């Protein structure tokens, strides 16, 4: 598939249609606004709400291992299932889910290229408002694999450009500090701008007009040649709350095959509120 380093983690909508009802396959739609799932989803898919089911509801953190095990068990997923993730907002939240599945060691998790928009706009693809019948499982997770996640101390310690690539995937106006967050967003920060040394590569640079990923050749040209991401160095991706950066984390780690890529899920809402942290604008 388009010469990606790990083509096995990406499936096309046609593949999903053909494999929909096979016993080892489970589908999960991950949305920020689960109205979309409620209105219609791929037959057999369960729906996860990113805000309430993938985030710890007390402290700011990913859900615990126990909560992850309960979530997947209640969804009828076993560790040996092939799990296909897709979702709204061009798969940002599905990509975050993919990152979480990998943190907790799920072996075979894949992203549906183009997300729910692509499926919706294809006339031969069905949607249903009926919820699937679930047989719960006892899911046992491994991990967490924290090599996939950057926390604030690491971000503050790193020297972007010298020891690692720092990729800011937000919109240009967020990067320059013209706005702190996209209009109307409630999660914000005290200051606008970006982490010094970060390269601005908005998440949408990685997708074409139908929301599917660009080819490996195109992606290499964008990230390595045009934006100066050094494939030999470690890389940290960040955005505002860690969901758009999951999308770019997926691109860099699995489509381009970079060795050490981390998602900084604290992102700008954390960094932009730290007293004394250095900030660049423009």
């Amino acid at each position, binding site marked *: 598939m388009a010469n990606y380093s790990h083509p096995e983690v990406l499936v096309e909508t046609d593949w999903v249609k053909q494999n929909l009802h096979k016993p080892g396959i489970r589908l999960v739609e991950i949305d920020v606004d689960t*109205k*979309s799932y409620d*209105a*219609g989803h791929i037959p057999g898919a369960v729906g996860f709400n990113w805000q309430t089911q993938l985030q710890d509801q007390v402290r700011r953190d990913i859900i615990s291992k126990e909560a992850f095990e309960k979530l997947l068990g209640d969804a009828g997923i076993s560790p040996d299932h092939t799990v296909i993730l897709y979702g709204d907002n061009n798969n940002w939240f599905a990509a975050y889910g993919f990152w979480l599945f990998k943190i907790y060691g799920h072996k075979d998790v894949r992203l549906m290229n183009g997300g729910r*928009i692509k499926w919706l706009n294809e006339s031969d693809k069905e*949607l249903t408002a009926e919820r699937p019948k679930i047989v719960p499982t006892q899911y046992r997770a491994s991990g967490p694999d924290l090599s996939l996640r950057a926390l604030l101390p690491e971000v503050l310690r790193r020297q972007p450009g010298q020891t690692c690539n720092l990729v800011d995937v937000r919109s240009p106006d967020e990067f320059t500090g013209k706005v702190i967050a*996209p*209009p109307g*967003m409630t999660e914000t920060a005290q200051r606008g701008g970006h982490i010094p040394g970060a390269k601005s590569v*908005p998440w949408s640079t990685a997708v074409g007009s139908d929301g599917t990923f660009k080819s490996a050749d195109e992606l290499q040209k964008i990230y390595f040649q045009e934006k100066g991401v050094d494939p030999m160095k470690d890389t940290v991706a960040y955005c505002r709350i860690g969901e758009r950066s999951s999308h770019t984390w997926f691109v860099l780690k699995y489509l381009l095959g970079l060795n050490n890529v981390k998602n900084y899920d604290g992102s700008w809402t954390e960094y932009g509120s730290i007293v004394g942290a250095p900030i660049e604008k423009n």
Partner: protein
Amino acid sequence: MNHQTKVYESIFEMLPSEENPTPLVRLSKLNPRAEFPLYAKLEWMNPFGSVKDRAAWALLRDLESRGELGNGRGLVEPTSGNTGISLAAMARARGHRLLAVVPNKVPLEKKVLLKIAGADLEVVSDELCPAPGLGDGSINLAKTHAKASAKKYAMPNQYENTKNWEAHYETTGPEIWRQTEGKITHLFVTLGTCGTVTGTAKFLREKMPEVKVIAIQPTEGHDVPGLRNVSQLGVSKLFDASLVDDILEVDFQLAYTRAMDLCQNEGLLAGPSSGLVFSGALEIVARDRQGFGVMIFPDNIFKYTSNMIKHIPGLDSGTQP
């Protein structure tokens, strides 16, 4: 039905046609050139209050005539404004329900208006950081309902359904041709679903190929309800660039100040999209110097008091004791 006495057996008999056109009113004070008269076509004189009556009626009749409605099946449509109001009121009067899918950023007063007109409302979260060309949350949610619950919902789809522009080809175009006695040289319109520009321009061009069609768009980042900048036109499948001579980009702030000018100098209680059209028309009057212009004024000012307060400094001063 008698358009002379204006006595009607049903509100639908009032819908516009060549025999019952919406009025054309000449601007008398704000147009500096007598050699280039400008006429405003007052679309708010339509029975449900805006230019959208034309498309809404055509879309609804099309679904009815194909037997797509009834037996528990209503309509679903992504709409935050005039189409929703027209469609909801028409649908309810004919015994159907409309689910209007609305972006959250739409002001409360508009959401409430939709409910008053009889729509059921579903509000979707706003797009967070959309990629260009990938559609809009409310359009996609409406499409999802239509696809997943086809027994419950039919979707007129004003952005793609050719009945939208055909309505203007059959009514707006012929009305203008007859009202101006073929003298029109310039048509001024805004862009939204693009049904108005495509249908009206197509008809007028067939009558007189040299008619100039000027589309006026607000600058990017605008908040003029119902309009689209060219960068947002990807969602409409009805835009036909071959029918448009010029696309003028006008500072969106002028939509509000020109609307105010029209209200206070011409007695035309025109809304912001009309203000934008007028602003573009003045540029062409200065450029071409001679002609006979018709401006489509989509709706009046009454729905836009909060937008006006935001854009006209001091408008809300003196409104408290």
